């Protein structure tokens, strides 16, 4: 039992406990904030696996970006104050079904992982930082993927703005009629 093991089990405990909270919590807000601890635990794992750049990216993108987005989503889709934020599972049968499937998957994957003979090549020399290597290969070997990812992000940005836009750009007749009648009523009032 060395220091690394202790830290590993600490992070594993954080990940599993908070992940369980995400999955089982009835309050969506609690689930969202539990997800934060899961992501932090994973960042800790990445740092232990000597990829510090990924660890910090995890914190930056997941915690600072996606999680905030999710929390805003929660706030926008539930009327925030005065309304129950609780949500239940779909049904008891479904609950049992899901539990069974996930237990089977967990056990199966674990068995698979423990029984496989992985080619294990521990890194002999601990690199100073993985950031130089990542930057180099991103702009040489993976330049196409890099550009595609950039375009993907742009498309996602535009698409998200378009989908969530309140006034639909392509109006059907019915909806436009509805809007106009609403306006009329407002004016009359």
């Amino acid at each position, binding site marked *: 039992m060395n220091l690394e093991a202790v830290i590993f089990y600490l992070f594993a405990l954080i990940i599993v406990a908070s992940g369980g909270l995400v999955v089982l919590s009835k309050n969506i807000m609690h689930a969202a904030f539990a997800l934060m601890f899961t992501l932090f635990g994973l960042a800790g794992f990445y740092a232990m696996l000597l990829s510090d750049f990924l660890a910090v990216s995890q914190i930056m993108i997941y915690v600072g970006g996606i999680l905030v987005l999710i929390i805003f989503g929660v706030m926008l889709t539930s009327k925030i104050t005065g309304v129950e934020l609780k949500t239940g599972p779909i049904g008891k049968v479904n609950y049992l079904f899901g539990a069974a*499937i996930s237990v089977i998957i967990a056990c199966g994957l674990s068995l698979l992982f423990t029984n496989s003979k992985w080619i294990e090549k521990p890194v002999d020399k601990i690199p100073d930082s993985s950031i130089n290597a990542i930057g180099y290969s991103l702009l040489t070997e993976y330049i196409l993927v890099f550009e595609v990812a950039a375009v993907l992000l742009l498309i996602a940005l535009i698409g998200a703005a378009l989908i969530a836009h309140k006034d639909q750009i392509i109006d059907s007749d019915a909806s436009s009629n509805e809007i106009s009648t609403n306006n009329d009523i407002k004016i009359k009032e």
Partner: protein
Amino acid sequence: MEIGLTHYLIVSAILFAMGIFAIITRKNAILVLMGLELILNAANLNFIAFARYGGLNVNGEIAALFVIIIAAAESAVALSIILNIYQNYHHVNVDEVETLKD
């Protein structure tokens, strides 16, 4: 006991199973999205564990980086869809959303 590849892989398996569980059982679309994030993170953990122990080196890390990028794009689009659903149905329960168009 020395911490090796298998330990990380088992944690990732547990995370993956939890994500599946959330996707199957939860009613709220945002919680389903959170389950999806868990699954993506499990995959990421695998990539990085292999990068460290399996000789995947930088390639593993770059794959993980792209997974993170795609997760960001995916969650943005998914949330905008969820917002749209909310505007039409005034709830985001995935089992009650039955029609694609009014």
